[in-house]
């Protein structure tokens, strides 16, 4: 394996959790709900994922537990914002704080406990393509899942009727309601999907990337995922670009620091944030259309009866 291949592999592992969480949040926001609790759902996924994996000895059980934990957190958020029409910003922030705290309790007796990561799946033939093969087609299942999510969500939003209805709820809840769509039910499922994705992204952190538990291990990735959604103008492919840009620069600046560049390390660490935002903003400015978010984003909807 060459150095370049090794770098690319680490880029993929750094980018995948961001991408999975961002795609989930993208669907939530397309339905008109702003869930700022990604970080909280993600870390609950990380904690429950590794606890379940160690307890059962099964990686798959860990992943399932992480997804369910993310969805449970999302359900709390949905109960507050849809059921009680609470302010979405406040509820999302509370969810993050709650998740950071609760995950510490859940994982308390597992701090530092190691387990083997989740194995890679080699795709026959494709993985033998020189250079690209081992990088793209000899990966863990999460990476494949993230590719599938981008393609699937993009297809769902633009090509299916259900996707059209979901977008309609995000554009104007009142109009969608007037046409007879169950806005709250649709938003509920979108929020659950977002929670499942955030939980999955969390599982990736504790089961593959590190693979052990420390409290606060999401380290702001949920917030990056949120930012990527906005700067990607709510387009799945652009979100993938943003996630990989961020992951790529994160890894590159590490290597640059290792190579002894005479730049303050704090500045280097800030680079991924700066460059990702600058690039995505530039794309947003250059390309017209799609730049505006869903018109009904963050506005609670209460049907009258």
């Amino acid at each position, binding site marked *: 394996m060459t150095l370049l291949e090794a770098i690319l592999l680490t880029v993929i592992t750094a980018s995948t959790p961001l991408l999975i969480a961002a795609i989930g949040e993208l669907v939530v926001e397309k339905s008109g709900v702003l869930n700022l609790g990604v970080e909280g759902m993600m870390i609950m996924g990380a904690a429950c994922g590794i606890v379940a994996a160690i307890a059962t000895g099964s990686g798959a059980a860990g992943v399932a537990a992480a997804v369910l934990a993310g969805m449970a957190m999302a359900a709390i958020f949905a109960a507050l914002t849809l059921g009680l029409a609470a302010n979405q910003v406040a509820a999302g922030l509370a969810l993050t704080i709650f998740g950071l705290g609760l995950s510490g309790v859940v994982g308390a007796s597992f701090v530092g406990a190691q387990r083997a990561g989740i194995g890679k799946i080699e795709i026959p033939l494709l993985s033998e393509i020189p250079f690209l093969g081992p990088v793209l087609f000899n990966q863990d299942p999460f990476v494949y899942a993230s590719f599938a999510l981008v393609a699937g969500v993009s297809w769902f939003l633009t090509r299916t*009727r259900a996707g*059209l*209805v979901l*977008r*309609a709820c995000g*554009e*104007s809840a*009142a*109009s*969608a*309601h*007037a*046409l*007879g*769509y169950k806005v709250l039910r649709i938003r509920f499922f979108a929020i659950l999907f977002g929670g499942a994705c955030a939980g999955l992204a969390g599982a990736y952190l504790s089961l593959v990337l590190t693979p052990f538990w420390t409290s606060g291990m999401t380290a702001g990735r949920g917030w990056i995922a949120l930012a990527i959604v906005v700067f990607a103008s709510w387009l799945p492919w652009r979100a993938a670009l943003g996630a990989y840009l961020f992951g790529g620069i994160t890894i590159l600046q590490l290597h640059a620091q290792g190579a002894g560049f005479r730049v303050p390390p704090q500045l280097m660490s800030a680079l991924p944030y700066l460059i990702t935002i600058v690039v995505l903003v530039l794309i947003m400015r250059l390309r017209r259309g799609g730049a*505006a978010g*869903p*018109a009904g984003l963050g506005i609670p909807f209460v049907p*009258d*009866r």
Partner: protein
Amino acid sequence: MPASPPLVQAQQIVKRFGALAANDHVDLTVAAGEIHALLGENGAGKSTLVKMLYGLLQPDAGRILWQGAPVVLHGPREARRLGIGMVFQHFSLFEAMTVAENVALALDGDAPLPQVAERLAETSRAYGLPLDPRREVWQLSVGERQRVEIVRCLMQDPRLLILDEPTSVLTPQEAEGLFATLAKIRAEGRAVLYISHKLEEVRRICEAATILRHGKVVARCDPRAESAASLARMMVGSTVLGVKHEPTAPRGKVRLAVAGLSLPPAEAHGVALRDVSLALHGGEVLGIAGVAGNGQDELFAALSGERLAPRAEAVLLDGRPVGRQGINARRRLGAAFVPEERLGHAAAPRFPLSENALLSGHAAGEFLAGGLVRRGRLLGYVDEVTRVFDLRKGSRDPEARALSGGNLQKFTVGREILRNPDVLVVAQPTWGVDAGAARRIRQALLDLAAEGAAVLAISQDLDELLEIADRIAVMFHGRLSAPLPVQGLTQESLGLLMGGSGFPAEDAA
């Protein structure tokens, strides 16, 4: 001959919102092949009733019969399955989506988009309502948006089409086009339930009418056999007098002048002001007509100082260049402004009326002493507005959002008029206000002008402008026509101008 049952019947419908009975034992019968008018003032319960017919609301009591058989409509989808279609007053369209996507959302089948677009093209051709399926809704004019709504209803092959105030946003010529479509729909044996408060058009196109007042049916009649005045009497319950006004040519000196004002649009979908000039004289009411979204909002913002002009000389107040000054500076020079949106622009919803009076009055009024608010004086001012404009409110100083639309409008207009401004710029002075309040506001504007002040009224309501204005100018695509004396102007001649005739050719496209 055994008569077949009527198409739809509502029997003894009751709907309450809290203590308010929005519908109080309402009966309505619509026969197949008729255009049936549902008349009433704002808040009479018309929208509530049709929402129940479309399954959006559930009646508390009473029942709905469809072709003689009782039905319970749990949602719009069930109503559509029976054959009920509805065109909403505030369009239920999605701005960022294409016409075809908007139509697909209202169809209950699972047809793929290309097929929807094809059927859409077919239907729009059949009814003479041209539409491009690929355009996004925000690019469409108001008339085109309504076409989308009507076409998507017709694609469901409805037996009953409900139209909620369909002409309130159209030019007279666009309304003619709508009437022709409605005639065609009726000729196919479909029924139309037509909600309106425009009495002349109801008399022209409807053969039956049910009139609501305060949630109750007060009359049923054949509008063709009534006069507009008799219909109005049934709607309001008493005789509504028009205001008395003798239009005159401008005599006073010029109080407010705009010279060659051009402004780029403030937002992505906004309108640019292009070379707008006007001269507003003391003692006159100058009306600005136009279809919504042709630059009226932008003109108001430029006159009030919410947006600054590129040159100070572009806006002159009593001869003084104020184009680069903000709204408070202009207020100090004797101007006053009433914006279109009552709640959120003219008044802060959660502030009490006294604080709302302070918001627009602090610059020129006497509500402050050394930077401190003089509460007593503010409350006295609210009392005075209440007395002069007959505000109906629960407490002495309630929050603005607690007032009904008509009462809040009387407050926002009254708050400015009682300061005796030299120049008053008012947008949509009586939009969505009941007849009594509208008359009081119009009379107050005329009285203010009679005392020598200059009044500029921006309105979409041509009847209103023809009633109170001395001269009327028309806005189209950000340009303003020369003002025309109101004598000799008709709905039709104004309608042509509102549609762009007489404006430079490149705008007319």
